[in-house]
């Protein structure tokens, strides 16, 4: 499997993603500058975290006009996997590849800490090495992760098992006290109808090696690699 990490002005998790794919997962990976018109011959697109375009206007709102995004849209429409992490998730929402929008965190604070998330759907390209209900310990770092969508969209996400991760307790219990940002229905990650585009607020690339105190994120990369075997 070959991967591309798209770099926007203001991305700051791009080298973490590259490092994990290259050094921890031993995958072929390259950076792609946002001004490129075409993606190279790759299988996976990673939209990394950060503050693309300084979060001007709304998070992710300006990145969707980057030249590379047309090619990313085509990649997604062709059914190939795209993972957007944190700001990458926000970009996927603004691009319309995923439904909904992000609001400021309920507390109005930037939250940077380890949280727990429960795997809601383990039959996806991104979670096939996880079991249903498996709890991961992965850090978040965002000011706008308060996921919102209308009722109809939420019903669809539920019915089609497109809520992939929810914030939970260590034991997998759901509750407001385990929801770090106020996200609707404790949503931490969702995918598109076709199941090839995932957006998630937590950072698996910051928790894919034991030295970082959790390597739970590794299972997400392993799942993606596994889906290409």
């Amino acid at each position, binding site marked *: 499997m070959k991967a591309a990490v798209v770099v926007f002005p203001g991305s700051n998790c791009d080298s973490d993603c590259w490092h994990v794919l290259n050094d921890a997962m031993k995958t072929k990976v390259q950076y792609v500058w946002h001004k490129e018109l075409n993606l190279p011959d790759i299988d996976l697109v990673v939209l990394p975290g950060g503050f693309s375009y300084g979060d001007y206007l709304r998070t992710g709102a300006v990145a969707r006009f980057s030249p590379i995004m047309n090619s990313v849209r085509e990649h997604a429409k062709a059914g190939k996997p795209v993972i957007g992490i944190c700001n990458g998730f926000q970009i996927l929402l*603004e691009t319309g590849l995923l439904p909904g*929008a992000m*609001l400021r*965190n*309920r507390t*109005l604070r930037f939250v940077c800490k380890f949280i727990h998330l429960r795997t809601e759907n383990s039959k996806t390209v991104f979670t096939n090495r996880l079991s249903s209900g498996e709890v991961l310990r992965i850090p978040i770092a965002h000011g706008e992760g*308060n996921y*919102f*969508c209308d009722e109809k969209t939420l019903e669809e996400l539920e019915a089609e098992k497109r809520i992939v991760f929810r914030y939970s307790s260590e034991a997998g219990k759901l509750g407001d006290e385990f929801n770090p940002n106020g996200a609707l229905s404790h949503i931490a990650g969702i995918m598109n109808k076709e199941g090839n585009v995932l957006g998630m607020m937590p950072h698996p690339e910051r928790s894919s090696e034991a030295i970082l105190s959790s390597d739970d994120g590794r299972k997400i990369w392993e799942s993606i690699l596994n889906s290409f075997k």
Partner: protein
Amino acid sequence: MFKAKVDVTLKKSVLDPQGQTVLQALHSLGFKHVEGLRVGKHFELMLHSSNRAKAESDIKVMCDRLLINPIIEEYSFQLEEVK
């Protein structure tokens, strides 16, 4: 030349944590009679449009496509002709 002033707020159905926090701060200043507060955004645009109708329709398109996110926000605008 037209000058447009666009005001954006979160939809009524969307919780506005920033507005609530500012409201609480006003209450603690003693303004207990303030009952509601929404925080929003304001844009001012200068447009070289041939006429008012064109300027209005352009602003609507600009709002829907970029300036606001219709999932969570709504807007209103005022348009005035300037020399």
